[in-house]
């Protein structure tokens, strides 16, 4: 699959979403960190996003992805990702797919709300979306054409802990990942996020620039080494995030990550758009 066909697919989905008659929008402001809010049962969220990297050495890249998130029921949300990557003058590639599941074991709201996360990834070494960062070492600067031939089937688990404290959300994710295609040991990572809605009382009118439509926050994420290579040359980022709910259907979000270590890219710019579609709405 070429990057142009991915773009065409994205455009079709955007068009489908725009002609749908009604939806909701509940979008966490984070790109990497997960909180304990699952997709509402029966809703399908369609999201497109992109991670653009500005490395200290080598070519910049842009990695778009398509995300389909479905609320199976109140305690289970499933997602499928399709991702691509393109680099300036160095080719494009389909990065692979991911199947993600999040389970919420407890029914109510607690001080600390755990969510269990299991993901299967069938990707290649050209993958650059960096939905999570694990292990150590910088990203490879080899040409995309070569990297896309190196396939990796990975199993990833996360323990998501999240709290609502007043108007704030605080979330912590602990990541471990096992590459089933290579013997690389188990890799570890983390992400933490804090965010706050700017709104107090909701206004009675539809408004696009009301404070209640904005959520501001920050997240930090990075690798914590692996069982085989230790904790050397890990990558870490800190990124302010902003989410803007546009009407009741769409949400836009953006973040600019700053690399904190020598191995990290200088910046990671992420932008995303999400549309929530209630597909199982019966009277």
């Amino acid at each position: 699959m070429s990057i142009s066909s991915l773009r065409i697919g994205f455009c079709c989905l955007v068009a489908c979403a725009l002609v749908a008659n009604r939806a909701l929008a509940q979008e966490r402001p984070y790109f990497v960190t997960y909180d304990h809010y699952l997709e509402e049962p029966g809703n399908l969220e369609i999201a497109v996003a992109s991670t653009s990297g500005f490395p200290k050495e080598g070519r910049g890249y842009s990695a778009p992805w398509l995300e389909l998130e479905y609320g199976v029921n109140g305690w289970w949300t499933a997602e499928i990702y399709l991702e691509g990557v393109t680099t300036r003058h160095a080719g494009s590639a389909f990065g692979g797919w991911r199947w993600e599941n999040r389970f919420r074991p407890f029914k109510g709201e607690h001080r600390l709300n755990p969510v269990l996360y299991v993901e299967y990834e069938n990707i290649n070494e050209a993958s650059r979306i960096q939905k999570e960062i694990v292990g150590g070492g910088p990203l490879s600067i080899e040409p995309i054409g070569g990297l896309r031939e190196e396939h990796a089937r990975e199993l990833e688990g996360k323990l998501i802990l999240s709290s609502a404290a007043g108007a704030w959300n605080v979330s912590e994710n602990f990541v471990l990942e096992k590459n089933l295609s290579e013997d690389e040991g188990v890799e570890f990572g983390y992400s933490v996020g804090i965010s706050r809605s700017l709104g107090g009382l909701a206004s009675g009118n539809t408004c696009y620039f009301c404070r209640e439509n904005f959520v501001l926050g920050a997240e930090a994420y990075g690798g914590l080494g692996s069982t085989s290579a230790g904790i050397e040359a890990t990558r870490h980022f800190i990124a302010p995030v902003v989410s803007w709910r546009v009407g009741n259907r769409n949400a836009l979000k953006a973040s600019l990550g700053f690399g904190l270590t020598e191995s990290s890219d200088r910046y990671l710019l992420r932008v995303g758009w999400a549309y929530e579609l209630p597909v199982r709405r019966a009277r």
Partner: protein
Amino acid sequence: MMPRISRMLIAQLLLVMSIAAQAFVLSAQTSERPSRWIAPPEAATRANPLANRAGVVTGGRKLFHDRCAACHGDDGQGTSKGPNLSAAYVQGQSDGALFFKITQGNTRAGMPTFSFFPEPQRWQLVLHLRELRRSPAATIDRGVCSPLGCANRISLTPRARTRAAVRQAGHAVVHESCRRPLWASLAVDGSVGPDRGSGEVDRCCNDRRRP
């Protein structure tokens, strides 16, 4: 090469099987009848701080339309995904109890957690829920008394009756002198427990009269 491929296949097979097994177990758990969902007393006694503020209910109406109507219907009368919010067993609860349930959610029954709303917005939602009480679809005639004491006469909509398995053609009469009110035995999906269908209410009350 072959052993490596077969090892990968086995790993993938195990992964799929484990996820399927987990899904099966969890769905079996949740296919059980949802347990009673009652707010704790300290939450139920909270008063709505916006109760006397004019105009803020319109914000609650907008939030309801955006976030709740997909399951509960535009008019709050319920859909196959969510119960009728104008029904007596909902309206009979205190503001604090409704606020608690909006905040907490009940993921086992498909009700999401809405703690991400700022607290004032959740109270605005409660205000809007109270507006649904005045909807013509659900009426509550208070002060109907019987030899057992005062009771509430509750008229449910035909739809709510069907979903709640209240099979009487007329009114479902609920006696407050029974062990617990009807709403306490209603699951969040709107169904009535087998012991509290309308035909069982009188038996329940009669049992209570016996020494």
